């Protein structure tokens, strides 16, 4: 009896909410800019222990956009890259600055669910190994052949994963991880031989004393873009592009590069 | 006190009670015997409506309790039952077992219920075990608590479903003694039992039930010593060694 009543109440509540809740029409103006990002991906976004903030190149860019729009920056971290992409696609965040590749096959796939700004960074892939690893690449440039017979870790949903799956030689094993933390931990422990990740994070992770080094770069010439939900429902894309153009012209972009990439 | 007319009960395909007619007068001790599967337990459980009869009527003091308007709980307050496997509530002390019905069903105050419970437990000889849990009692003691529990409700009729069949031999005596005392005090009792000694000495009426009908009934001497029906003779010869 109690159950019947409960079910009926639930259904009634749902029905009532459907009619009561506002739909369509003009939503109220937003005061926040909700930005989604996936950490850690230094130096683009990382967690600063001393002040408990999320910081990075991407975050600074997002801050500039927020100022341009006159809104308060709110950064939300997603612990899985695929979850982040899904959230952007469904409008769960206003925009996402998270080293998202907009070019190539991955880019066109992502274009189905999100729109991108003008490119704001040019990136390549890097191969991260333990310092003691025997892997060397001629002229610090690796190819898919360099990864033969190796167990290579990648983060799920990234271009690293798609590049490796598309280009690997038969003897390469691919291990997929949810976060960068996990793949770095596996590499340090020795359960995988290498990690394929964007070059800048690779260099950032291979800090002195970390026991890791970059064996070499894989040239993919990827372009990062800032993502908004499909159709730019919030109408912020033009503002984003304005900001990007302005900082390039004024030299503020170069200052940021210097700040984060040394 | 109890009148049963044309009682039928089936469980699926199995037609267990096939038209039972029975009368039990006030103060009478009626002993029901018969082969297993004859429907004795089912009959007992119909009297206090634990089982709903398919057809037929049961009258308790001229009230037709098989009337769907009658609340089973009302009937059960007036009909006490003692089970073969005692069925004490294992998470409660002997005292709490007895007071539960008093407080929850009769709505008695806790203090009054406690007094009554102690009285009933003294009556069955277990005043010293009021705070014991069933797991700490012997089989005979548990059954006596069960009897006290049923008596506490001041029932008009007491039903006993093979009360000693699950007891070790050394405990059967103490339970039968309590039942005998109860009978002598004038309680109306319907007892399903294989204890022929009890039936012969205490029962006013012995009823043989076989295949769901009453085959024969009468005073113990008649049924045991001078059975008239063939089936009665057959049953008696099997159990009276």
């Amino acid at each position, binding site marked *: 009896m109690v159950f019947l009543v409960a079910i009926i109440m639930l259904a009634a509540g749902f029905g009532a909410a459907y009619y009561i*809740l506002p739909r369509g029409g003009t939503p109220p103006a937003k005061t926040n800019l909700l930005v989604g990002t996936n950490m850690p991906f230094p130096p683009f976004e990382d967690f600063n222990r001393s002040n408990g903030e999320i910081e990075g190149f991407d975050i600074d860019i997002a801050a500039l956009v927020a100022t341009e729009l006159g809104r308060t920056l709110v950064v939300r971290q997603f612990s899985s890259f695929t979850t982040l992409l899904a959230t952007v696609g469904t409008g769960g965040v206003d925009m996402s600055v998270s080293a998202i590749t907009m070019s190539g096959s991955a880019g066109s796939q992502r274009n189905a669910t999100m729109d991108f700004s003008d490119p704001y960074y040019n990136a390549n892939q890097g191969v991260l190994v333990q310092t003691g690893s025997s892997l060397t690449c001629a002229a610090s440039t690796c190819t898919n052949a360099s990864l033969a017979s190796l167990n290579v870790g990648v983060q799920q949903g990234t271009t690293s994963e798609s590049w490796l799956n598309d280009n690997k030689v038969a003897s390469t094993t691919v291990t997929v991880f949810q976060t960068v933390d996990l793949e770095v931990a596996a590499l340090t422990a020795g359960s995988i031989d290498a990690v394929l990740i964007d070059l800048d994070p690779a260099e950032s992770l291979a800090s002195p004393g970390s026991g890791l080094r970059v064996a070499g770069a894989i040239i993919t010439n990827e372009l990062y873009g800032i993502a908004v939900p499909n159709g730019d429902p919030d109408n912020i894309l033009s503002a984003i592009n304005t900001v990007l153009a302005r900082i390039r012209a004024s030299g503020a972009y170069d200052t940021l590069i210097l700040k984060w990439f040394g | 006190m109890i009148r049963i007319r044309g009682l039928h009960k089936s469980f699926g395909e199995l037609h267990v009670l096939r038209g039972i007619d029975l009368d039990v007068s006030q103060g009478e001790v009626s002993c029901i015997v018969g082969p297993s599967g004859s429907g004795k337990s089912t009959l007992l459980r119909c009297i206090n409506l634990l089982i709903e009869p398919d057809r037929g009527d049961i009258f308790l003091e001229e009230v037709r309790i098989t009337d769907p308007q009658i609340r089973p709980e009302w009937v059960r307050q007036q009909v006490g039952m003692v089970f073969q496997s005692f069925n004490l509530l294992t998470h409660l002390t002997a005292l709490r077992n007895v007071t539960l019905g008093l407080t929850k069903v009769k709505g008695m105050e806790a203090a009054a219920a406690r007094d009554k419970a102690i009285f009933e437990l003294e009556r069955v000889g277990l005043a010293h075990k009021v705070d014991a849990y069933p797991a700490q009692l012997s089989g005979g003691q548990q059954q006596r608590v069960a009897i006290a529990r049923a008596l506490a409700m001041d029932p008009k009729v007491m039903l006993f479903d093979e009360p000693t069949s699950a007891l070790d031999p050394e405990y059967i005596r103490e339970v039968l003694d309590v039942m005998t005392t109860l009978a002598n005090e004038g309680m109306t009792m319907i007892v399903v039992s294989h204890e022929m000694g009890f039936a012969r000495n205490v029962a006013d009426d012995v009823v043989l039930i076989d295949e769901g009908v009453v085959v024969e009934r009468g005073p113990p001497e008649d049924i045991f010593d001078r059975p008239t029906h063939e089936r009665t003779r057959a049953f008696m010869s099997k159990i009276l060694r």
Partner: protein
Amino acid sequence: MRLWSHASRWAFAVMIACAAITVATALGQAGVYDGRYAWGIAAELAEGFIGTAALVSAVIPVGFAFGFLVGWGRTTRSWFARSVATGYVEFFRGMPPLVLIVFSSLSAAVLLRRYLYVEDPFLASLLVGVLALGFHSGGYQAEIIRAGIQSVPRGQIEAAYAMGLTPRQTLLSVVMPQAFRVSLPALGNEFSSAIKDTALLSAISAFELSQLAGFLARDALTINVRMVVIPWIEAAILYFALTFLVVRGVKAVENRVKVPGLEAPSL
């Protein structure tokens, strides 16, 4: 005699703990690991511990509440209640908790943004994810409680009815107390499972211990690669402590509701 054995058990435990701390400190000073670092991150991990404890204190009660209702619903006479309850159990046990958490949390976030114009639905979506995990745990707890209810001997229910108790009175006075007692050990088991499952809530950015340990471990890379394992060891100790506390709590409840004479014999 009982008091002494009780006290001596505690004294023994304290001695073991002191010995362990002494050994750990000595190892640190001997350079096996960086003692200062280990103690330094302990404070941060303690915050993570509190975060996990907060999540646990939401997940377990939600699970118990729904587990109780649904477990009971599975045993009622109402066909409707049984169907709904069975549906609940099948759904929430069959769904991988991570999928459940992420899906429900993100759906909530998107719905809140789109229809209620909530700008930053983080807290609400976190709550939804926690509730989802609670429901998941509830699915398992429901089965435990159902088994407990069904373990109450039918004869006792008969006897209760024979005394004139209504089905509802019987449920409250006869069935539930015994079902609860019987269910406790298995529930303790499920609680410790739920504690570990809270680590999944990091997928929706809940502040909890395992994700923090991961951060600190990677951070340790910038100091010295040999220290990477320290945050994980400390986190493991904290998880063990939390599980130990919860299970002990359940055991304490077990002892309080224990029925004399029904203790299981030692084999």
